[in-house]
């Protein structure tokens, strides 16, 4: 009974979101569309990062590198062949790839697969490390990827970046990708493999004694994470219409770290909420960047950059009072939702997830 109700409610919710995507696509201005698109792309990458960092407990900081791979595959193969000489004006494109054109969806998937392949090559030596060491090693590899891209002039146009990527403006297109990835990751986490990932997070030694091959499962999580980060990076490139090595500095990774810490490490719905809060929140705080006149007096604090101060303070408050993020390791489920509606005050006092 309850399962059927939940399934119907989930389908209704997805349909409502899709209708919303449709509405945003046709009825709003390009600024709103851009914010919504960016929210969804950040949600994809946040989800991918949560898979390694939140669910498998491997503190990896390589997301920017995997995004760069996806973005560059989109950049290289979706620019119309006729425009390429103008884009690659400093050094001509390598003749092997100069005539290959791909539609966006194919470039996204190939970018994802390439990112997963690179993740496998990086993972083999690096996933033996734990904690801080793993973080530093993945951070280093992410920079190596960026530097290789910067120096492969005839393939990636080097430091000049690639312009004239056909811009992606369709909200429905990105929404479809986000929805599919969300459903896939939810289903994976709720499978036996998802439980194995969580077991590794909880206690590696015990997980291994229970027959879970640590290396195989860590590598699997790392590759799936890289695959979706590659797709997210490709969408990001298509959204901006240009890719540039400087877009993929390691500081980019911290945006996603922020999203998953804010939303809750080990919560899929938390990552979605975190992505929306961070992306949209930063946009709505723009009022603080504009000069404000109050009773004829200009408030001197309101100047460009002030929103970042406000944002940082909000983050500090949040992390101080909700150390496990908004969702912790909980998920938004219909059962939790109804329990919350029945007893909003008692709900947060209970420990653990309760199923009906």
């Amino acid at each position, binding site marked *: 009974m309850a399962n059927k109700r939940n399934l119907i409610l989930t389908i209704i919710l997805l349909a409502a979101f899709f209708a919303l995507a449709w509405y945003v696509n046709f009825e709003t201005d390009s600024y709103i569309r851009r914010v919504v698109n960016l929210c969804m792309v950040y949600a994809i990458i946040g989800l991918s990062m949560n898979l390694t960092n939140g669910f498998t407990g491997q503190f990896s900081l390589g997301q920017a590198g995997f995004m760069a791979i996806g973005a560059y595959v989109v950049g290289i193969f979706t620019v119309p062949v006729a425009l390429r000489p103008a884009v690659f004006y400093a050094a001509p494109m390598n003749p092997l790839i100069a005539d290959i054109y791909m539609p966006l969806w194919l470039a996204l998937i190939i970018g994802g697969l390439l990112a997963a392949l690179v993740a496998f090559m990086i993972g083999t030596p690096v996933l033996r490390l734990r904690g801080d060491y793993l973080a530093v090693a993945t951070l280093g590899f992410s920079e190596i990827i960026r530097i290789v891209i910067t120096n492969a002039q005839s393939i990636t146009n080097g430091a000049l970046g690639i312009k004239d990527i056909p811009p992606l403006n369709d909200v429905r297109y990105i929404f479809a990708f986000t929805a599919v990835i969300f459903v896939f990751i939810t289903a994976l986490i709720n499978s036996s493999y998802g439980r*194995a990932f969580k077991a590794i997070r*909880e206690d590696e030694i015990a997980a291994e004694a*229970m027959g879970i*091959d640590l290396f195989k499962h860590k590598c699997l999580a790392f590759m799936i994470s890289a695959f979706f980060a590659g797709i997210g990076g490709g969408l990001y490139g298509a959204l901006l219409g240009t890719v540039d090595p400087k877009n993929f500095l390691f500081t980019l990774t911290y945006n996603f770290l922020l999203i998953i810490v804010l939303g809750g490490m080990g919560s899929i719905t938390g990552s979605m909420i975190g992505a929306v809060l961070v992306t949209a929140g930063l946009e709505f705080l723009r009022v603080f960047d504009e000069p404000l006149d109050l009773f004829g007096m200009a408030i001197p604090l309101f100047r460009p950059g002030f929103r970042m101060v406000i944002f940082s303070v909000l983050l500090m408050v949040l992390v101080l009072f909700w150390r496990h993020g908004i969702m912790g390791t909980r998920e938004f489920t219909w059962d939790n939702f109804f329990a919350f509606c029945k007893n909003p005050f008692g709900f947060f006092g209970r420990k653990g997830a309760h199923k009906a």
Partner: protein
Amino acid sequence: MTILRTDGITMRFGGVVAVNNLQIDINEHEIVALIGPNGAGKTTAFNMITGVYTPTSGNVIYTDAAGNDIKITGKKPSAIAKLGIARTFQNIRLFKELSVYENVMIAKHLHLKADFMSAALHLPHYNAEQRQAEAEVEELLKKVNLWDLREEQAFSLPYGQQRHLEIVRALATNPRLLLLDEPAAGMNPKETDELTEFISQIRDEYNLTIFMIEHHMDLVMGISDRIYVLDFGQTIASGTPLEIQNNERVIAAYLGVEEDA
């Protein structure tokens, strides 16, 4: 029939010889205990058998259900678990934040044949395997009276039940040989009695062989078929509980002897 044999395994950590030339034979369906004072190398011996450490020298030989001798020295712990050797830990190592049910379900993962794509897409052959595992876990949890607590987080259970759950989790891997590292540590006499009862019950019910480290002598003497005694990495005695109780070297190791005695 022998199920596990160690051929003179030795473990050195730098200059320290933690276990020296350990020779153990365990027959099917036996309960064998490994005792000895603190720091004697008992847990190191367990870690060598389960693959956490690779012995400096010597071999561990496991005989599978078909009667083949398999050298398990240097294999990964996960591979050894798949062969049918499960263990518990001296300091409880449950998946603390996960529910009792999930803890036991995780132990079923090693028998899963479906790959991650079929699992993520919930394809029929994965679902069939999963339903089978769920049924087994339900039966097991009901049998050990943990079914009503299945939604509780593992760390919220009382201490005795956490120890219990760890054994149940190991049982869920369908082992042939179960290694228990101080299962009664920190338990009061009543809980120890219940545990003794539980261990011999699961031995008979699941046709297990049990190898355990224990300090509670009532438990050890009560259910062991044979006992090995370690002291400073050396095997100082082995035999039936009665033989061990009357062995002078064992008494000396536990109680100490006067210099001029």
